[in-house]
């Protein structure tokens, strides 16, 4: 598989997208650092980029890449290699490029102007969300034969998780405000990777407000490393399952 990955990477790293995305992130990072004077402001500005832009770009790029590379995928399937390896080399190449763009795009400005734990966590979340949305995009791609449709599905995932889902949660909280819904809302958050990333950041930026939650459960959840560990574990599950589903479908798929 590493041989395949090596060549997939060789191809994708030289693509115009990888360069453009990295330059875009560098420019974003530079402008954020220029405008914000302290680290907490930097992380706040980065937060929106990481929670909104990064998943969007990951979803669209992964879908386009899958379809642009379809013929090559077919060629590889006719070679003496495992289907699993063909799939993994494709998705891992996408993930590596997306992650590298984030690491270089934000890492270079960070080396120049400094970073703190919060900003580094944000980088991790950006990478995590890239992996998750690449997985979702591949899932959408293997489930349909049509590129436009797949991009549509990937975009829907993005809109759903970054806007619609929260609207639904807010509506639920609002209409059932007479009931103790704290655990339910916290539970709902676990079914949305964007919210998970956001909660991990909240635990760093807004821990004081979160501790206003009533109940020992929340004090424990937010007050200790437990909350971060649990959310990260859940995020890991989110990284794995769409990719897993996509791989299962891919292994049975006709090309």
């Amino acid at each position: 598989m590493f041989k395949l990955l090596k060549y997939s990477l060789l191809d994708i790293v030289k693509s115009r997208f990888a360069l453009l995305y990295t330059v875009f992130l560098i420019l974003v990072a530079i402008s954020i650092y220029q405008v914000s004077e302290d680290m907490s402001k930097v992380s706040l500005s980065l937060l929106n980029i990481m929670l909104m832009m990064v998943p969007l770009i990951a979803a669209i790029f992964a879908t386009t890449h899958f379809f642009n590379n379809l013929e090559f995928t077919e060629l590889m399937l006719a070679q003496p290699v495992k289907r699993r390896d063909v799939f993994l080399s494709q998705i891992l190449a996408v993930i590596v490029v997306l992650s590298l763009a984030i690491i270089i795009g934000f890492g270079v400005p960070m080396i120049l102007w400094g970073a703190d734990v919060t900003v580094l966590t944000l980088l991790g979340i950006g990478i995590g969300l890239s992996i998750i949305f690449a997985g979702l995009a591949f899932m959408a791609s293997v489930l349909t034969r049509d590129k436009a449709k797949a991009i549509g599905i990937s975009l829907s995932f993005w809109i759903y998780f970054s806007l619609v889902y929260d609207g639904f949660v807010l509506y639920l909280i609002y209409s059932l405000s007479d009931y103790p819904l704290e655990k339910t809302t916290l539970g709902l958050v676990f079914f949305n990777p964007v919210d998970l990333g956001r909660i991990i950041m909240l635990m760093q930026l807004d821990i004081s407000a979160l501790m206003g939650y009533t109940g020992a459960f929340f004090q424990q959840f937010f007050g200790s490393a437990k909350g971060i560990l649990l959310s990260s574990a859940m995020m890991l599950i989110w990284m794995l399952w769409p990719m897993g589903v996509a791989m299962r479908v891919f292994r049975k798929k006709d090309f």
Partner: protein
Amino acid sequence: MKATHIIIGLLLIWFIPTQAAIIELKPGNSIQEAINQAAEGDTLKILPGIYLEHEIIIRKPLTLIGVDYPTIDAMDKGNVIIVAAENVHIEGLRIIRTGKSNLDDSAGIKFFDSKNCTIINNRLEQTFFGLHFSNSSNLTIKNNTLISVAEREFQTGNGIHLWKCKDSFIENNFIQGHRDGIYLEFVTNTESNHNMVLENKRYGLHFMFSHENSYYKNTFKRNGAGVAVMYTRNVIMKENIFEENWGASAYGILLKDITDSEVIGNIFRKNTIGIYMEGSSRTIFKRNEFNQNGWAIKLMASCDQNTFEANNFLGNTFDISTNGSVVLNTLTKNYWDKYEGYDLNKDRIGDIPYRPINLFSVIVEKIPSAVILWRSFLVTLLDRMEKVIPSITPENMIDHSPKMNPYDFRTANS
């Protein structure tokens, strides 16, 4: 001639003990007996070791000095020392294991109707109440360490407890793990400075009906509910630090019915709520720093004529929230890190006013669990809309002259 000799001799006998006899006590000696036998003004020098005594009663001016912290162990029975006298000086003792009864408010040292007493450099451990004063005045409470290891609020009393006292100093004490760190009720003209008060179960500092007091440079950290000050006027709180008071009803300070007071140069850092105010008026908040609090200030609608001037608001989740719509308070020249305005005339004051209350904080005020959606795209969107067309947030809660850059209090205060 003889008669005069006798008189002089008698005078000598009379005077020498009053000029402070020093009586040494070793472990095994009874402190109570020594006190009973001592003359007024004597000094008891207590040598290192363990003294198993409780309910030691002092009714005359005396000085008790511990050498290398001798331990008086009450073995969980009642009070350790009870004082009802003037000019009592207690220094360098280690007092442990009082009774744990709410009925007699068991305390390490308890003072009734005393005057001019000093309590210095003592260590109190596993005491129910630490230092307990009633109806006393001119007290100096300094450099004491009070540590309680109780796990729950009802298992412990207050660290330094003053009831109906006046004209006193509470200075440089370390108080940990009690119910209230410092408790003052009907206490006037008293100063509390440089105390370190942390991890007390209820309030770090709790005072009621205690007018004309001041609090300088104390640190209140991780107390169950922060600091509560109630029903009081003319209070001065300066350069204190209120830190990491976390919880559903935890505040840096809870101000209830406080009037004509000053809160200046304090730091509120990482509290769930920095300042919670209700029924308070004519109080000035100046040069405070609010840093990384959940809510920097929760201002209930029952507050009026308060002034918030030249404070720094940095990294708070919400700067100000309120439960009402009409709020008659003044906000001016504060620095708000969330301010996004501009300064075209370069006077370092933003050209457009700042509204510190955002829509979502109003929602969270009604439905606390909604805070989990904070910083989501949806909520950001809602807040933007509200900024453009204010509909829910109070119209007159507004800073017309927001600063463009934060104040540097460190140089300003020194």
